[in-house]
């Protein structure tokens, strides 16, 4: 048996590590420029799916571009590198995460996912001149004097008027009840929803029922709501994990009406947890329903599935952020990579073909109506309905 001394072993290991470091990355870096994009959000705990879907969507898009040689900006090809940070839905960690990302020179960050965490990023983004794309709905993030945040999806208060109107006129909804997560996002969405329902003349039979994100059984909470006999139960800021539990509990107590959610849901989870009791949920979707998706969306879904292990319908709304960042950088030119002022200057006029929709549509920055400035990605407002285990498209609209 060959005897190897500890010193020899350490030296050999060191030499191997050194060789690997010198041979691997340096060769790649010489060939390509790298465009680093940050992704910051909740990726552990009960809300983990919100941030992880952002991460997997960004990784899928980056892989698709990188396989084509990278993104061309100003005549140079850039490989896209996604740098992810889990903030565990804790604003303190969001701040340190944002500082870490901007410290690496990253100027564009996808996320965070909640009002509290998104708000905590603002001073860091302004100080370090970075642009971030939250999935949180607080208007103050996108309204002047704030100008470094771009809302990545359609806000609840933009969906609610359209959704409730359709349900009132086409489904005969007269009585509406709200059940909200007890956090700033849930309560904000509920307040906005109540205002919309009042404006439409709907009778609000219940609006005080809330639950903690750590809830483990909805049966007692939902009982109160069902007892008011509404035609529609709106679940404000409901997480994909909670929506099917609420639906199942309500159906088990004899509820036969509709459900509404102004956030994206996942059909697989609904099928698993609620089964046949999961029909009748009206919610906001992305461009992922089969009847409207383009071949590029199919490719994105395949790639996403390879990375994440399975498709998540939430990703239909979250596929847009990185594509829009890349498209805008292409138009604004290489100076925008390190200078967000150049990027911001390109926002008002920017538009590109929506790669995810089969029909010939454009995607652009919107938000003037709600925020007084274009600080929102114009993701199509696709309202979906769950029916017999499938997501079907109820209506397609847009935000201005």
């Amino acid at each position: 048996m060959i005897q190897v001394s500890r010193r020899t072993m350490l030296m050999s290991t060191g030499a191997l590590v050194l060789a690997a470091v010198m041979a691997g990355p340096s060769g790649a870096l010489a060939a390509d420029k790298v465009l680093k994009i940050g992704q910051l959000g909740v990726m552990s705990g009960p809300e983990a799916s919100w941030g992880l879907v952002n991460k997997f969507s960004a990784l899928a898009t980056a892989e698709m571009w990188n396989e084509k040689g990278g993104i061309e900006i100003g005549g140079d090809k850039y490989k896209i590198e996604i740098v992810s940070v889990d903030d565990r839905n804790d604003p303190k960690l969001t701040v340190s995460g944002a500082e870490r990302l901007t410290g690496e020179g990253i100027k564009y960050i996808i996320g965070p996912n909640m009002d509290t965490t998104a708000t905590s990023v603002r001073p860091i983004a302004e100080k370090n001149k970075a642009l971030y794309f939250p999935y949180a709905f607080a208007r103050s993030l996108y309204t002047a004097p704030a100008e470094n945040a771009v809302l990545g999806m359609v806000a609840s208060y933009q969906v609610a008027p359209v959704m409730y109107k359709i349900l009132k006129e086409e489904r005969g909804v007269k009585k509406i009840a709200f059940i909200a997560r007890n956090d700033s996002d849930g309560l904000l969405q509920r307040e906005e929803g109540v205002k919309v329902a009042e404006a439409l003349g709907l009778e609000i039979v219940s609006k005080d029922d809330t639950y903690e994100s750590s809830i483990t059984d909805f049966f007692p909470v939902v009982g109160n709501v069902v007892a008011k006999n509404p035609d529609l139960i709106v679940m404000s800021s409901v997480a994909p994990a909670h929506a099917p539990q609420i639906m199942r509990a309500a159906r088990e107590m004899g509820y036969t009406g509709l459900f509404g959610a102004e956030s994206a849901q996942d059909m697989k989870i609904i099928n698993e947890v609620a089964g046949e009791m999961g029909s009748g949920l009206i919610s906001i979707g992305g461009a992922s329903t089969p009847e409207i998706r383009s071949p590029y969306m199919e490719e994105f879904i395949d790639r996403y599935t390879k990375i994440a292990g399975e498709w998540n319908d939430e990703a239909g709304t979250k596929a847009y952020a990185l594509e829009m960042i890349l498209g805008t950088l292409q138009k604004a030119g290489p100076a925008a990579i390190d200078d967000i002022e150049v990027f911001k200057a390109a926002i008002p006029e920017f538009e590109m073909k929506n790669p995810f929709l089969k029909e010939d549509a454009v995607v652009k920055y919107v938000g003037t109506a709600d925020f007084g400035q274009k600080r929102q990605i114009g993701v199509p407002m696709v309202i979906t309905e769950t029916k017999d285990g499938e997501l079907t498209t109820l209506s397609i609209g847009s935000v201005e």
Partner: protein
Amino acid sequence: MTQILVNGMLLSANYALIALGITLIFSIMNVLNFAHGQMFMIGGFVVYYAVVVWGLPFPLGLLGAAVIVGVIGMVVESVFFRRVMKNSSREENTMLLAVGTALLLENVALSLFGEKQRGIPPIISGVYRLGDAFLPANRLLVLGISLALIAAVLLFVNYSRTGRAMRALAQDRTATLLMGVDVPRISTLGFGLGAALAGIAGALLISISGVNAGIGTAISTKAFIMIMIGGAGVMSGALLGAVTLGFAEALGYAFFPGSVTYLIIFIGLILFLLFRPQGIMGKPWG
């Protein structure tokens, strides 16, 4: 009112399994198992994979959850806790170890099982009416299984030789050792049984509310509330804590806006602990 009582009864039975497991571990090891909720979560995922992914019958999944989580508990006890308890006299070290184990299990689960909520279809379908209250058949079945298991655990702990050794260990570790009981073996078995109970609770509740990789902390928090009410390390106290929490939740959600319920429960718990820090059934410390 009938619905509130039904809700309280269903919640109590579910919580009792969780509370029994954590109090068993505390009584034998004097360790607050912060990873109890994560063991609950793993039990749920075992059933999910057994029933949904591999198409096995639910009872087999339930058995698998009990065995797998029980074995995880035994490994955690013999590899981590026993060593730390042997080498350190500071109680906070085992608490820190339990917190670390919780984080480890949660992150391993997140990597293995993903971020999504998982659930299985109801084991049996249908809804019964009890007066004006709704009683889903699946919840009734879970209630029945929970009560049967609680009875089985109490019989085992009170009348079996191993169970008596566990109780002796809970009362006086040194005396038990002097009586010739194989203390390391009983500790490992006790920890395994406590973990298995958490796994069974997760395995049963996945058919009602599903599980996700992040659910552990919420479950552990409820488990601590129950044993603080009932008295840490006392079996009857754990059951009393479960019933108290179950009915407090059901009543709270019925009469107060949702989120006020846990606020009231926590305020009540603080006031209660001011007057009876050892819980209802616990003995005064010292």
